[in-house]
């Protein structure tokens, strides 16, 4: 390698976040995923205003019709516009996904952070509890909960959140524990900074990485879980609808009216793809081992 003509430019230091953003930008799939996600969220938020038909509007005489000029994605057996149904269904599905994950996030992060930071006996007890809960057949409990208490949306969020927080707690705890032992925390401590400030300024920002990644990857599994519950008749209840429910109805009439399955199926799949690719990209981007150089 010839080193005669080498120009050295002063390299600007980059924070973890800027570093991550640069790496993320290079990952085409992740960007596509991000873009898709953002557009879906925007559409969902605007649905009450931009949906072409009323949510409940049915036209029994028409029944299920394939895509046409008036109904871009066709109609279902009640004559309801599928585009409208899918938009509203998306709202519900995304809402379930985000909120249930948020519940899991809230519980998991706090629990894990406390356990990781306090350490010692408290940590041991808390983690034993997590291990215990891990052993429980959760699908069974969710089914039981929904069967016993009826199917309302709030319970659904709670039930799903109660399942997903465990792994989050483990991740956070692991992260916090390893951070706590790091020198910069000891240094901050010896400088006299309060526990709280240490947590806020040092621990939490450094924990965010894995948490964000895991959150992004939890949302799709939450949405799938909702779809499973709908299959068993325990998820979202009509007249509300979700993509999971729409897909379930579509499967029943797969041969007669394929568009009832294809469009919600594509919608759900695309969203799941987007979230997964984004999550993968974030994971790669935030991984300190692969720097931008």
């Amino acid at each position, binding site marked *: 390698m010839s080193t005669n003509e080498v120009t050295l430019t002063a390299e600007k230091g980059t924070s973890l976040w800027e570093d991550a953003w640069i790496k993320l930008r290079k990952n085409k799939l992740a960007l596509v995923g991000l873009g898709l996600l953002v557009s879906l969220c925007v559409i969902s938020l605007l649905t009450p205003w931009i949906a072409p038909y009323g949510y409940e509007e*049915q036209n*029994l005489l028409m029944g299920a019709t394939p895509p046409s000029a008036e109904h871009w994605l066709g109609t279902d*057996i009640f004559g309801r516009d599928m585009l409208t149904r899918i938009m509203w269904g998306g709202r519900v599905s995304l809402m379930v996904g985000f909120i249930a994950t948020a519940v899991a996030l809230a519980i998991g992060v706090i629990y894990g952070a406390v356990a990781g930071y306090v350490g010692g006996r408290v940590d041991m007890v808390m983690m034993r509890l997590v291990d215990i809960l891990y052993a429980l057949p959760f699908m069974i409990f969710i089914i039981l909960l929904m069967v016993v208490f009826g199917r309302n949306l709030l319970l659904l969020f709670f039930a799903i959140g109660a399942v997903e927080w465990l792994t989050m707690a483990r991740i956070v705890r692991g992260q916090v524990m390893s951070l706590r032992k790091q020198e910069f925390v000891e240094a901050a401590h010896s400088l006299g900074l309060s526990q709280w400030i240490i947590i806020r300024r040092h621990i939490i920002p450094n924990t965010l990485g894995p948490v964000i990644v895991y959150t992004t990857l939890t949302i799709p599994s939450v949405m799938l879980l909702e779809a499973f519950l709908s299959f068993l008749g325990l998820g979202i209840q*009509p*007249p509300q609808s979700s993509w999971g429910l729409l897909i379930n109805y579509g*499967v*029943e009439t797969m*041969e007669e009216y394929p568009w009832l399955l294809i469009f919600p199926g594509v919608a759900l799949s695309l969203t799941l793809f987007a979230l997964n690719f984004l999550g993968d990209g974030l994971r790669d981007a935030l991984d300190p081992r692969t720097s931008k150089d």
Partner: protein
Amino acid sequence: MKQQFSSSFFTLLSALFMSLLLSGCGSSESNVAEGNRTGILHWGNGTEPQSLDPHVATGVPEHHIIVALMEGLVHKNSKTLEPEPGVAKSWTVSDDGRVYTFELRDDARWSNGDVHNAHDFVWSWSRALQPALGNLYAYMYFPIVNAHEFYKGEITDFEQVGVKALDDLTLQITLKNPTPYFLQLLDHYSMYPVHQATIEKFGRADERGTRWTYQGNFVGNGPFKLKTWEINRAIEVERNTFFYGNDEVKLNGIVFYPTENVTTEERMFRAEQLHYTNDVPIDKVQTYRDANDPALKVVPYLGTYYYRINVREPHLQDKRVRRALGMTIDREQLTEHVLKAGQIPAYAMTPPNTRGYYPPVSLSFDPEAARQLLADAGYPNGEGFPVTEILYNTNEGHRKMAVAIQQMWREHLNIEVTLLNQEWKVYLDSESSGDYQISRAGWIGDYVDPNNFLDMFLCDGGNNRTGWCNEEYDRLILEVAPTAKTHEERLAVFTQAETMLMDDLPVLPIYTYTTKHLVHPSLKNLANNIMDMQRYTEIYLEGEED
């Protein structure tokens, strides 16, 4: 050693995987082809039966299996539904219509060869009415003198109940009142005889749920006997060589499959794993119709699909409100476009032509008149009408109906209606405890007579659940009808009663049921009666014609 681990691991894995794939090889004769060859019928039966004890079971899937294994004094002709000799070869009725004397066959046997006679019936019925057994169909027996009292525990000596074995082959039954439909009741499985020795071998006579009905234990008096019972998989019955009519029975055996998922059942039919399905998915009916596929059999059924109205609810107490609701359900649209399986709009509770009875019709689809009624009741244009809830048990079909009706009421009456679905048990509880406003319901006739549909709504009828009570109605059903001199007179009384019912409208009839099945062309001689009753001794399989 650890390196060998991965290679041996993989070898093992590959071997297992191959075995999975290779399991696909083997005889690929379909159930249907094999069944046609061997005379075994493959029958989709809906749900796994709870029990095959005829005095404990309560459902239709149980019925289909029990009637293969057992028989009553009489059975119904598969075309006319009139009573025909069963275990009893003949009978006479006294002039006052209260005493029935049956002569039993002398060649009647149990499936283990034991002699079967009148004493079996006396013992069986005493067992069926034991209070501790919890026979939910005990009311079938109540026309018999003192049967109800015995069931309630008011008398404990069965000698006082109106059933006597005059001798080995003669059975005499005494009724409280002349009951024209009594012979029909005898065909219901709750009145079938059971084998005393077998029951007593496995527990007390009034002990519910002993092992006597299991594979290897079951003894019955029907054309078939129990061969295997694998829970949730299949129940197989085989020819009972001791059955008196065995020579005429063509089928060699039947396999009943618990096909809960109707979509899967349809696929099984197409893959030729079944000769006969229990039901057809609603959305597939049109496809079969359009293709003119003879496999689809749609037959009227003795049942009414209706909505109960809880008349105890303040805003539903006014008859005008209820009539407005009833008049804005477009039944034609529902049956044509939502149900699409040949169902018939119902404007009265009793299905038409129930033993010659045609119910009076005073209800029709009339949104204008309905709006007027609603306004008269104090809710002009639906203003001020409280949000009302339709309760239904979780089921696709019910959901569709409820959604459609919700929309109709909104459109025609401008009222707000919400939907609530609960699963079966919860829904039943809600209905029984009156914890509902409007609730979906269905009633399938136990026997062919208007009484079965109208006596539900007696003041203290256990199946009433609406809170509606009309003493004159009760008098007509309980006192006037049973004492009518002729069939026509009786029907006239029913007409009177049903007119009252339909005027007050504590229930909104919606449609008369049909049954729909997919039937393989090799299954012959099926009956088309309104009780969806098949006689296994009459149907047979023909070798496939390609």
